[in-house]
């Protein structure tokens, strides 16, 4: 699989993501600078976690206007796969490549702890190594993870099966309907708040996050 990880000023989980992808694919992903205007040939674009531009306006807002985002829109429009984790998810919503928005956590504090996620469907590029209903552990680390959308949008997401992951143990950040991750209508863009890439090594406490990367690696094995 050829994966590219986008680095914005303030991105800080690009290394974690590279380790996770390399662990499953056996191949180092390329790092893409936010100022690029074209993408190399890729199977997957990843927007990793961090605080792009300090998240000083709204999380992900300034990154959503980065030069590379035009190329990513084109890539997505052509059916490319895009994964956004944490700040990457926020950027995807700000860029309106995914619906909804991520507000300040309901408890008004940054949250950093493991949560349990439930997989809502097992037939996407991102979830194919799980079955619906599977539970897995993932560290979360964010201040703005409170997913909201208007009721119509939420109903549509549910109705069309576009909820990828849900918090299994209540909604730690106040997210509507416990939503932790969503999909685009073509199922090729996925955004989620927790960090499966930080749990891919038994030494760090488990490999719960690995199915996501193994599934992608298998899909694009070539």
């Amino acid at each position, binding site marked *: 699989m050829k994966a590219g990880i986008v680095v914005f000023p303030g991105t800080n989980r690009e290394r974690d993501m590279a380790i996770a992808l390399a662990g499953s694919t056996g191949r180092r992903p390329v790092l893409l600078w936010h100022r690029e205007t074209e993408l190399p040939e890729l199977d997957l674009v990843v927007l990793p976690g961090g605080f792009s531009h300090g998240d000083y*306006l709204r999380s992900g807002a300034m990154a959503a206007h980065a030069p590379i985002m035009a190329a990513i829109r084109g890539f997505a429009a052509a059916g490319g796969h895009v994964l956004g984790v944490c700040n990457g998810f926020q950027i995807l*919503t700000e860029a309106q490549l995914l619906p909804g928005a991520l*507000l*300040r956590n309901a408890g008004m504090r940054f949250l950093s702890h493991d949560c349990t996620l439930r997989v809502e469907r097992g037939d996407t590029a991102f979830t194919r190594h799980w079955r619906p209903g599977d539970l897995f552990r993932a560290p979360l680390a964010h201040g703005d993870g409170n997913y*909201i*959308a208007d009721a119509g949008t939420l109903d549509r997401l549910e109705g069309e099966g576009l909820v990828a992951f849900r918090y299994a143990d209540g909604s730690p950040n106040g997210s509507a309907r416990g939503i932790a991750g969503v999909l685009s209508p073509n199922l090729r863009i996925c955004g989620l708040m927790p960090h499966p890439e930080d749990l891919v090594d038994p030494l760090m406490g488990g490999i719960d996050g690995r199915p996501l990367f193994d599934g992608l690696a298998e899909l694009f094995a070539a």
Partner: protein
Amino acid sequence: MRVRLTVMLKDGVLDPPGKAIGHALHMLGFGNVGEVRAGRVIELELDEADPARARAQGDEMGARLLANMVIETFTTEVVG
């Protein structure tokens, strides 16, 4: 000219900071506080002498970057 954008969450959108502030004010004894909404202001110095054009430019910056139109609304004022 100096332009001020005030960005607020749309009515009906849950406002965690507003809620937290309302709660804290009640705890401090301000019992007559009702709904609280929290928002952002952005004040910009514009190299533009015409107030109407300054406001139009503020509106454009609001729509393109400073507000997230999915959940927020904003107003633009020319303040000097």
